[in-house]
Each structure stands twice: as C-alpha cells, then as structure tokens.
C-alpha cells in the first residue's frame, strides 16, 4: 500500500528540505520512496510544494497524484485546493500559527503552532523542522530518531551547529505532540 504525503507552504519555509528528509528516512527504513519537488522557475517566494510517496514495493504511480494520505501544510496559500486531494479520513497536519482553520471537516485535522514555537526558540526558520518532528512523532510513519539522523547526514560537516539547532527544533515538535498525542484537533471553522 502506497502512502502519499503532500508538503505545502511558501518559498523560504524549507518545505523541500523536510520532504526530502522524510523520504530519505523512509528509505533508510527499507521502504521505497518517490519525491517530487515543485517550485516555480522564475518565481521567488511563490508557493512551494513537494510530494512524497512511500511504499513497501517499488512506486508505480507517477509523482503527480490525484489523491493523498496526508498533507503537511506550513502556510494556508493554496491549501483549500490542495486539501481536496485528501482521502476522506485523511490527515491534515497544519502549522496552526498561519493556518487558522481546516478547509475540510471529513479529515483528521491536527495542528501545532510551529512558527510560534520556532520563533520563541529564536529562529522562525526552524518552523518546518518543528512541524516535521511533530509529524513524524504523531504519525510514526518513520521512527523519530531516523529523521534526526538523516537530517544530520544531509548537512555538511561544517554545518554541525545548524544540525544541532535543527535537532532541537525537531525535538520541540515531537515534544509538543506527545502530551495531546494525535488529539490536538484544530477547529474546522472560526479562527482559533
């Protein structure tokens, strides 16, 4: 069975990086993976999107998918349209600091204030790592430690400091989920 996860946000949020980390972590776990990155060519700060497909067997479906198992949304831009791809009961995982409400009612909407958390930790840019940590921890789609490993491996030696910071952000995200587990449902209406 193939599980498709769509990562969405705007340029500069680090969407592509966290998608890549998740896919590689899955590969390290022996899964098959396909990763498709969409970022406009002559477009700065435009929408950024990435699709990850994971499965036990080689991935047959082409990377542009009609339906998905989960969405990790760092920003509301274009989310409504994207959300239509979620299978009923699918998972909408949102950065609540910017995504104030869930576009659909028939899906499991989980939110955490990733940007707020990162910002309080001193670097807004860490938001995507916070979200990835939370996503991994709450879905268990790949072991949390793998995610950290792969993130570290993805950075050159001299970026050690950055790696440590990222690790902290991932951990914050994971930590944030632990208490409320998968129950941190977000309002499907009225900004919260």
């Amino acid at each position, binding site marked *: 069975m193939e599980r498709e996860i769509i990562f969405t946000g705007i340029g500069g949020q680090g969407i592509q990086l966290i998608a890549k980390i998740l896919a590689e972590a899955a590969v390290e776990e022996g899964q098959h993976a396909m990763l498709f990155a969409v970022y406009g060519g002559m477009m700065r700060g435009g929408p950024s999107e990435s699709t990850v497909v994971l499965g036990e067997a080689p991935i047959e479906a082409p990377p542009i998918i009609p339906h998905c198992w989960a969405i990790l949304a760092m920003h509301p831009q274009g989310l409504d349209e994207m959300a239509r791809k979620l299978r009923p009961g699918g998972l909408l995982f949102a950065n609540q*600091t910017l995504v104030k409400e869930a576009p659909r009612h028939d899906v499991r909407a989980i939110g955490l204030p990733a*940007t707020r958390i990162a910002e309080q930790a001193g670097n807004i840019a860490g938001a995507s790592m916070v979200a990835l940590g939370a996503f991994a921890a709450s879905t268990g789609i790949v072991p949390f430690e793998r995610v950290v490993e792969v993130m570290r491996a993805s950075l050159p030696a001299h970026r050690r400091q950055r790696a440590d910071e990222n690790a902290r952000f991932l951990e914050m995200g994971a930590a944030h989920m632990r208490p409320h587990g998968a129950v941190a449902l977000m309002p499907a209406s009225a900004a919260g």
Partner: protein
Amino acid sequence: MRATVTIDIETCKGCALCVPVCPPAVLSMSEAVNGKGYRYPELVEGCTGCELCAKVCPDYCFEVYREPAGRREARP
C-alpha cells in the same frame, strides 16, 4: 507628535532593514508574526519623519507623515 509612519505589516517580509537605520531608534521587530509568518516593525513614540526606514524598505511598507513646516514654527 511631529511625525509618524504607517507600516503595511502584512506586506512586510521581516527583513528588519528598517530597524537599525532609524536615528531615534523608534522601530523594533514585533513578537507576533504576520499572515506570511514574518515579524514586522513596530513604532514607538518619537518618529522624526526622516524617511530613512521608507527608503531602505525593499517591500515599500512605509508611508511617512509630518506636520507641515508652517504649523510647527507657529508653535511656541
């Protein structure tokens, strides 16, 4: 209040270029973030209307207002 600026905080991308150039240092970055997820400058009392923030802002967020020279002199 002799002068002030309006700041289009939703357009702001949080680069903070405006903060250090402000002579009276009446600009500082917010705690909160805007719809794009960026912090934005907040103004406190004391703007002199020097326009520097407006000139360095890459996102054209500022408009600067001043009391007309005439009226200023009029005061004691």
